[in-house]
């Protein structure tokens, strides 16, 4: 299938992403969710604010998913990233990978999130009690 790629200001919908990758040949599915947590680097976080270069972000995600397809045969993939203000406990990113066997789903999902975090032009600003700052990895 064509990968599902969403970069959106709306809350992410895990159920819809799972439904998009479902198929009778799927034996294992791995879902990763990045969730906004209440602290980071010793600061109390109030919320995060995500910004993206959206056209390039989508293109970069497409390249990453294509690489996962080549390496692990991961044919059924959905990636969604939230933009704008995201509250504690909300998902900022969801990746769903469905494959016939579980090992490939784990490998591909991990590869996609690790690579996304380092190469996809999406930035986060931490808004804490002390102020706000763009986070550098």
């Amino acid at each position: 299938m064509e990968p599902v790629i969403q970069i959106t200001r709306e809350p992410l919908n895990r159920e819809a992403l799972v439904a998009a990758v479902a198929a009778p040949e799927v034996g294992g599915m791995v879902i990763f969710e990045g969730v906004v947590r209440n602290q980071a680097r010793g600061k109390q976080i109030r919320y995060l604010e995500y910004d993206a270069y959206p056209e390039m972000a989508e293109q970069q995600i497409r390249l990453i998913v294509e690489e996962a397809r080549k390496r692990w045969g991961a044919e059924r993939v959905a990636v969604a990233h939230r933009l704008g203000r995201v509250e504690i406990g909300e998902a900022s990113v969801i990746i769903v990978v469905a494959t016939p066997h579980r090992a490939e789903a784990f490998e591909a999902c991990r590869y996609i999130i690790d690579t996304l975090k380092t190469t996809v032009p999406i930035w986060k600003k931490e808004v804490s009690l002390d102020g706000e700052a763009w986070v550098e990895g």
Partner: protein
Amino acid sequence: MRYFAGLREVVGQDAELLTVPEGTTVAAARTLLITRYPRLQPILERSLCAVNREYVPADRTLQENDELVFIPPLGGGAA
């Protein structure tokens, strides 16, 4: 030129037109920007370069209508 994240906040706008002589490299455009916005220097020196939505090396030469974006460091990390 389009600006995102920390760069946009320093520049105070989303995008602007950059007029440079033919054959100008991305590196030269970066130097020009730093002249115009000295406060960009630290962040621009840690940024990657993208032209037309692809990462490019700094010696890439610019063509008419190229969309040049400097990509500030990504959050990435272990979160």
